[in-house]
């Protein structure tokens, strides 16, 4: 399990997607702190749950960026059409 986890971490940290690489970095930091007993069991659990929340935030941010881009295109076309 640990060997696979390390391989997964490596893959995450080398990921081209900045947000995913960032989540991988955070996950590794949380794991290290837990192993060094710097955080308690319940703190560890909460921080791991937060990673899932961050993943949702990143997904929604991508959705918003796409929506914004489509509105910008729509605006340009609308101004073109109104000039006719």
């Amino acid at each position: 399990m640990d060997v696979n986890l390390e391989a997964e971490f490596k893959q995450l940290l080398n990921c081209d997607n900045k947000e995913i690489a960032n989540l991988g970095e955070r996950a590794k930091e949380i794991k290290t702190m837990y192993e060094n007993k710097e955080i308690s069991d319940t703190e560890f659990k909460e921080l791991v749950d937060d990673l899932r929340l961050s993943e949702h935030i990143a997904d929604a941010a991508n959705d918003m960026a796409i929506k914004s881009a489509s509105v910008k295109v729509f605006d340009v076309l609308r101004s073109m059409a109104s000039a006719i």
Partner: protein
Amino acid sequence: MNKLYRSFSILLLATMLSGCMTSFIGARFDNNEYFLINSIRTTAEIGVDYCGTNAVKQLIPNLWVKSLELKNYASDIPGNGPMIEMSTKLHDMITGLNTRYKTVVESVEPSTSYCTLKFNSIIRDSKIIQRVVGDKPRWM
């Protein structure tokens, strides 16, 4: 070419009249959303330096109120799905922090490492939200 533009204009008008435009309301830049997310990020950036001190205990409820404000503000704006999702998740994250400090017993203070990790997560996610909110198209 003119025919193409005319067709597009008709399509555009039909879209506006059909009420589809309401789905774009939430897609526009909103000063209040930007103000609130900036305020959350700034409070968290200040808070992280106070982890391990008593001062952080005063900042956390304030941060929680701000995130609740953002969540409530975003909730009833039409076509604002992604912002509702982001503000809800961010508020959930901050609620965890607030609950832990609110229910703290003298002997079981949250660890400084937990506090730092938690604030850093809030800062990073606030920055992501602020970036996309700031990039929303302005009203024409």
